[in-house]
């Protein structure tokens, strides 16, 4: 019964569409058109090779083997086998290549079932389609903004530092509003959970912030507004703006020439732009407060057209162009220590943090080995020592990625997540593999503890999926209730890291 109906419907569809098709004709046909009864491709006969290539690429026409058609005046056998026919009734200007729709394509029963509650097109397909349409679903800069440096720009300070990590956000006015909330990158752009407190003349909210760049808006009775007192704004990815606030972590002070006219800070962090970062006059001299990203930065002061090193900073180096710069580091200094190898002539520290440059970070000889202090931002790095041209993984570091001789030592700076697997005391080898290491099956070994296995690790903000591999057997994290299904129907554990 079902099959009969299908044939019936297909015939009827074809009949109605055919009648309609005869009515419409266009002088300039579309290159590619897909109708109920057939797919039609028109290729102009006078077309350059470049244009032809671009048509093939734009319309994914590889199957048609058009070069063969242009050379031989007929379709290649493989094209014919795929169901394409050359329509000889076409005009002199165009090749018309036609592929009739198969019964299956117009067959209701061949289509996919809609599950109740499921969107009419599966979300996986929707996401693919959106991607194709150039819609970028996720802009990490909106949720996890980053910057190398930053200074605030307020008409009137609406964000005040209360000490420590606490900041007071204020919104003047809007006294008649019923509800005002703050929403920003620091609270996952929540839409009402962070209600501001009504105070005389306006609204306020205390928020803890790590040093860095933060985006925010106020929500006044459901209406989004950027901070009217904050002149630092960025497009919000749609048609409006977000306010930008930098939580500071660095003061630069220049008191050597208090009577100078103008003092600017210039540095590697702002690409040495000279007029961008003016110091403010203080009682003692000059000062600028700012946010500076973790890492090592070179800088100088420009005082009335002359350059000065920072008199309060003894660390200075000469760069390749003969300029001497002061150097400052933000963040924790890691001390790389290699014991032994007293007879070695030279030892270099080489790692992902310096682009695996083999000759940059020469280690200093110490009493019982070699040392190298280096400032690193939070993250996961791989490194090795190069001892007189020989690669050696850090003997003091049990965490390695890969197998010898391609084993790199793994350094986790400021870990923000502890992978932990309780029990399995008889296991010989426990690894973690996930989206954060491209599901590498041999890279991250957990260390045995008294009641299980663990590995402190740094995960970037966002979603991560992972599994443990216990003596070669994959399994979800039994200590994590959050998991999602995977293509093997075995599930992956899920972690969300918020900044």
């Amino acid at each position: 019964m079902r099959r009969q109906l299908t044939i019936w419907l297909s015939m009827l569809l074809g009949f109605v569409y055919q009648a309609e098709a005869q009515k419409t004709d266009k002088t300039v046909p579309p290159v590619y058109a897909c109708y109920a009864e057939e797919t039609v491709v028109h290729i102009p006969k006078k077309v350059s090779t470049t244009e032809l290539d671009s048509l093939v690429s734009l319309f994914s026409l590889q199957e048609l083997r058009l070069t063969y058609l242009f050379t031989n005046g007929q379709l290649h056998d493989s094209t014919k086998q795929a169901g394409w026919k050359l329509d000889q009734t076409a005009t002199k200007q165009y090749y018309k290549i036609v592929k009739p729709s198969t019964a299956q394509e117009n067959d209701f029963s061949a289509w996919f079932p809609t599950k109740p509650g499921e969107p009419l097109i599966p979300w996986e397909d929707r996401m693919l389609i959106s991607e194709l349409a150039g819609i970028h679903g996720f802009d990490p800069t909106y949720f996890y903004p980053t910057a190398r440096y930053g200074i605030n720009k307020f008409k009137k300070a609406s964000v005040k530092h209360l000490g420590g990590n606490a900041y007071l956000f204020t919104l003047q006015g809007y006294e008649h509003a019923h509800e005002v909330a703050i929403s920003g990158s620091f609270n996952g752009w929540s839409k009402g959970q962070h209600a501001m407190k009504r105070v005389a003349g306006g609204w306020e909210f205390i928020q803890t912030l790590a040093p860095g760049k933060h985006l925010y808006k106020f929500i006044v009775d459901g209406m989004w507004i950027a901070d009217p007192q904050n002149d630092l704004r960025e497009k919000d990815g749609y048609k409006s703006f977000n306010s930008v606030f930098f939580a500071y972590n660095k003061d630069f002070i220049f008191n050597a020439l208090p009577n100078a006219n103008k003092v600017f800070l210039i540095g590697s962090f702002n690409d040495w732009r000279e007029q961008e970062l003016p110091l403010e006059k203080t009682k003692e001299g000059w000062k600028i407060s700012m946010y500076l990203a973790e890492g090592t930065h070179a800088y100088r002061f420009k005082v009335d057209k002359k350059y000065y090193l920072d008199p309060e900073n003894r660390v200075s180096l000469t760069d390749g162009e003969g300029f001497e710069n002061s150097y400052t580091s933000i963040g924790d200094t890691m001390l790389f220590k290699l014991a032994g190898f007293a007879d070695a002539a030279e030892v270099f520290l080489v790692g992902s943090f310096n682009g695996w440059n083999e000759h940059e970070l020469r280690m200093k000889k110490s009493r019982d080995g070699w040392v190298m202090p280096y400032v690193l931002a939070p993250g996961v790095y791989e490194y090795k020592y190069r001892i007189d041209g020989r690669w050696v993984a850090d003997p003091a570091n049990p965490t390695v990625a890969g197998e010898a001789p391609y084993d790199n030592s793994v350094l986790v700076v400021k870990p923000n997540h502890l992978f932990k697997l309780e029990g399995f005391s008889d296991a010989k080898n426990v690894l973690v593999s996930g989206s954060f290491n491209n599901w590498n099956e041999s890279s991250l070994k957990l260390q045995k503890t008294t009641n299980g296995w663990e590995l402190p690790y740094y995960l970037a903000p966002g979603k991560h999926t992972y599994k443990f591999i216990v003596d070669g057997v994959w399994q979800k994290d039994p200590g994590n209730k959050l998991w999602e299904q995977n293509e093997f129907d075995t599930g992956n554990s899920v972690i969300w890291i918020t900044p």
Partner: protein
Amino acid sequence: MRWLFLLLGTVLSWPVFGQTVPDTSHAVAVMWANERQVDDPIPQCQSDEITLPFTLAGRLILLEARVDTLVGNFILDTGAPFLVLNKSWFRKYGTTAIAQAGGITGGISDVMSTMVREVQLGEVIYNQVEADVIELNHLENSRGVPIFGLLGLNLFKSFEIRIDYDKQQIKLFRLDKKGKRLTGQYPEKALEELPFYLSNNTLLVDGTLVDVPMRFCLDSGAEVNVLHNRLPKKAMTGVLINSRSILTGTGNRRIEVLRGTMTGVHMHKFKVPPMPVLITHLGNMSRAYNLRIDGMLGYDFLSIAPVSINFVTNKLTFWEVAVTP
């Protein structure tokens, strides 16, 4: 027997001459709707007008809602008939497998259904809400933010819901029996008013594309307009195709996708401005609930101007954009 009804309904409803798009009967749809009935949850709220700010993930509307104790992002999806929860976050919920007997393929669906004690959206509270629980991890991975579920159509059926993409704001208006706002206030001028109808909680609007009758589904979960790739030639003359791609979709299916611009869409008196459109095989879509659907209108249509959907009057209204001083 069901197929006999379908055949009869289809043939009887089919205009014999002069029409190009086969129009399946509404009677058929009603018969199939009986397969899965979900009660519309009853909203409780004090205010006659509720404002909900939203953010956009791509072009998807993210609203904040609470399902029992869990608060987070939900997508406003007028293409979903009711509340849908992301299985990753609601795995602990007791679920019942829904055996969808007699689906067109004759298969049995593995969709799980559950009952949520309380849902809160702004100040609106719903009790005892039936929901489906499905995997939405592709959606979540693509958007990079936790997404707890989809707020489907039946949560809004006693309201006029006004979507304003420019202000990133939803307004819910409580209505009287005739569909008038209880606030009594209509500060904006209506630009266009279109009738719509619901079939199995799917929002449908009739229109034409180059004079060919079309039935569109209105779907706030569609980031791009999509047309079915089996349309008559006359309709397709209204679409300028710019490119074509082959994608690999669910279960390694090959999906052919054409990109273009759609002009010449009319909905009653409303001449719809040219809109970008993708053309693909709407497998699910065009037979959804056995009602032929020729296309899906999403973000590009719903963001033409602030738009209201009034479920009492069954009218869709575009409002003149208010000029802020």
